[in-house]
């Protein structure tokens, strides 16, 4: 508790200017990325649907990146009982869920025209779905325990278990599909992506990351404010 009130001062001072700055960077990068994107020619196979890529691929990337952040924050909060880390983990989960949902939704929107179906049981898709379920489980667990400190610790344990498990899930799913003759339509994307697509894509990835950073900081600030209000209310109640 004390630790929390000491350290957060610095965090709050830092995030006060860092959050808006990151937000601006995100907007700038996204604007640039989208501008480049719309200058690029429609893909000869996929036509205009290729524009979905610039939303989809960064979202899919972020879904994993945010989980890593969540795992690290959970680890810190569990081992060092650092309250700011707990707040960070709590703040990251909905964002990660959002990115994962976005990746799933844009993916299936994209899949309809390109693969002719909303969903296939491909390893990549399956492991994103499992990741989504991890997020949902994390939030459900945290919401179901009323005592905040206990909820945070239980959720942190789950996040760590998930962190260890996700690579295994990923590889098992890949292995599964190679064993069962999967539908060979996909193997989405490929490294041989022309620069006209690569540049805006990278810009968009960075835009997503900056945007995530901004939202994360804002949400952590919100957590800190909430805790401070609770402490104040408690003092007032005597």
């Amino acid at each position: 508790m004390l630790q929390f009130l000491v350290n957060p001062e610095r965090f709050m001072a830092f995030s006060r200017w860092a959050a808006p700055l990151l937000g601006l960077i995100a907007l700038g990068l996204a604007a640039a990325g989208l501008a480049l994107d719309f200058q690029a020619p429609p893909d000869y196979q996929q036509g205009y649907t290729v524009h979905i890529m610039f939303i989809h691929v960064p979202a899919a990337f972020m879904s994993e990146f945010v989980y890593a952040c969540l795992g690290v924050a959970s680890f810190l909060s569990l081992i060092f009982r650092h309250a700011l880390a707990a707040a960070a983990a709590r703040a990251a989960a909905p964002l990660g869920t959002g990115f994962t949902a976005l990746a799933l939704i844009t993916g299936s929107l994209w899949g309809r025209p390109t693969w002719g179906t909303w969903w296939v049981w491909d390893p990549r898709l399956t492991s994103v779905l499992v990741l989504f379920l991890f997020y949902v489980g994390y939030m459900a667990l945290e919401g179901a325990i009323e005592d905040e400190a206990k909820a945070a610790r239980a959720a942190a344990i789950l996040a760590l278990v998930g962190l260890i498990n996700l690579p295994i899930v990923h590889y098992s799913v890949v292995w599964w599909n190679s064993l069962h003759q999967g539908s060979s339509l996909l193997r989405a994307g490929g490294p041989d992506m022309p620069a006209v697509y690569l540049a805006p894509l990278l810009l968009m990835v960075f835009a997503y990351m900056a945007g995530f950073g901004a939202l994360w900081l804002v949400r952590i600030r919100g957590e800190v404010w909430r805790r401070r209000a609770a402490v104040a209310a408690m003092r007032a109640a005597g």
Partner: protein
Amino acid sequence: MRAFSLIFRRELALSWTGGGGPVLALGFYLAMASLLPLALGADPARMTAVAPGFAWLVLALASLLSLERMFERDFEDGALDLIALGPAPLEMTALAKGLAQWIAIAAPLALLAPVVVTALGAPVGLAPIVVACGLIGGLGFCFLGGVGAALSLGSRRGGVLIALIVLPLFTPPVIFGAGAIEAFAAGLDWRTPLLLLCAYSLAAGALCPFAMAAAARNALS
């Protein structure tokens, strides 16, 4: 009537509030559904065939998962004594418990079922019949399960009783439901099995509360 709404809202709150609500049901269903292709292989043809039956399985499982709590908690913490001393007969309480279980657990799952069944490759056109079967059959599962839950109160071998008494009773609705879905898919007469399912579930809803109340009274005494 007032008493019924009171106890019904209490039961609903106990099984529904806190942590997720529909999100939880959705997550549960998705998780179950994503295991199916993993276990069967991704071959769409295989999965399409099993998908509707699988939706049933999930419903039945979900209604068994929270069965234990239906009476046991109230029995062991003394709340059932106070409820029994209230204005309504235990039969009404049993009815409220069954309905709350249905609304809180079976109904959300039934409403989600078509999404999942479609994702598993079944034709979208099956959605109405899947929802209908889920809602109607779920009612039966909840009440039959409730009988098991009440019977197993305070007995040394509660689970055995549930298994021996309730699961056989699960069979008819499972058959009717599966029959209705299959007939619908094949363009045959699905009304008859659906009506049978309806009749069975309504009969369960009407008769089971008496069995539940009798079993609960017996456990309390």
